[in-house]
């Protein structure tokens, strides 16, 4: 496995996917606002889609299923982003903030 043939090797794609997933988890823990957490969640979904695409290219007998599944993941992620943004706007109207520290009414 040499550096210039990396695009034909399965572990390269799996490492990209693992890296994106860990970035997403890191962001989910470290972010304070809901939008920052949404960005991290998008990274996690993209990592899952990348893994599906890599296995589809290298291992799967029928090389269309992974592509179809990646398209489904994209559709679900777009729907999720739209819902999350609208929830955020509704929350901002009531609380004047999207910081997760201000949204703790249930704890009191």
């Amino acid at each position, binding site marked *: 496995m040499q550096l210039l043939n990396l695009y034909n090797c399965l572990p390269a794609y799996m490492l990209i996917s693992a890296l994106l997933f860990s970035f997403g988890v890191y962001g989910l823990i470290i972010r304070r606002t809901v939008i920052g957490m949404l960005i991290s969640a998008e990274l996690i979904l993209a990592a899952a889609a990348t893994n599906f695409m890599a296995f589809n290219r290298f291992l799967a007998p029928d090389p*269309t299923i992974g592509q179809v599944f990646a398209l489904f993941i994209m559709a679900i992620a777009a729907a999720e982003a739209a819902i999350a943004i609208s929830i955020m706007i509704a929350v901002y109207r009531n609380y004047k903030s999207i910081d997760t520290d201000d949204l703790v009414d249930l704890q009191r």
Partner: protein
Amino acid sequence: MQTIICQPATTPALFTAEGVVGVIFLVTIAMVVIGGLIAVHAQRLVRAVAGLALCFTGLAGVYYFLLSPIVAMMQLLIYVGAVSVLIVLGIMLASPEEAAPVDEKPTTDIKHRSVLAGPLAASIAGLLFASLAILGLKTQWQVFPREGEGDIHAVGITLLTTHGMVFELISIVLVMAIIGALVLAQRGRN
């Protein structure tokens, strides 16, 4: 015994067409990694969204290298074109960080968290990455013989025959998401 799956396994020289393709792949990987780092680490959320767009552009290149131009195209269209713009719109509508008064520092995202949060998050993410990488590298993957091409034609046929039911369900989910987003955004208005 451990085999690393490379198809084909020949390494090209630098100044051939395949070598230049390998260099372009390294550039796309760098785009993904740098964009991801900006997306989770930028103080301003707008910069984080820009990093997200960069990361997803690089990912579209990765999908192109995985022999799937249709998914790469959809990645550019949906993620870079729609989701990033949607998040920017959400920041403009809901985030007060840009409108802070001049005398006080504008509130940023990663500031004033607990001291332990950064090292804790980094160690958890590092452990996850290490375990996933070991899992991916050590597993003995089994390669099945290929049936079919996997080009756009085959993807379209599979999408509308084998997975036609799921395709319709996805469209129902999207319609519900649109209606739900409209209702939610209107309900909060006083």
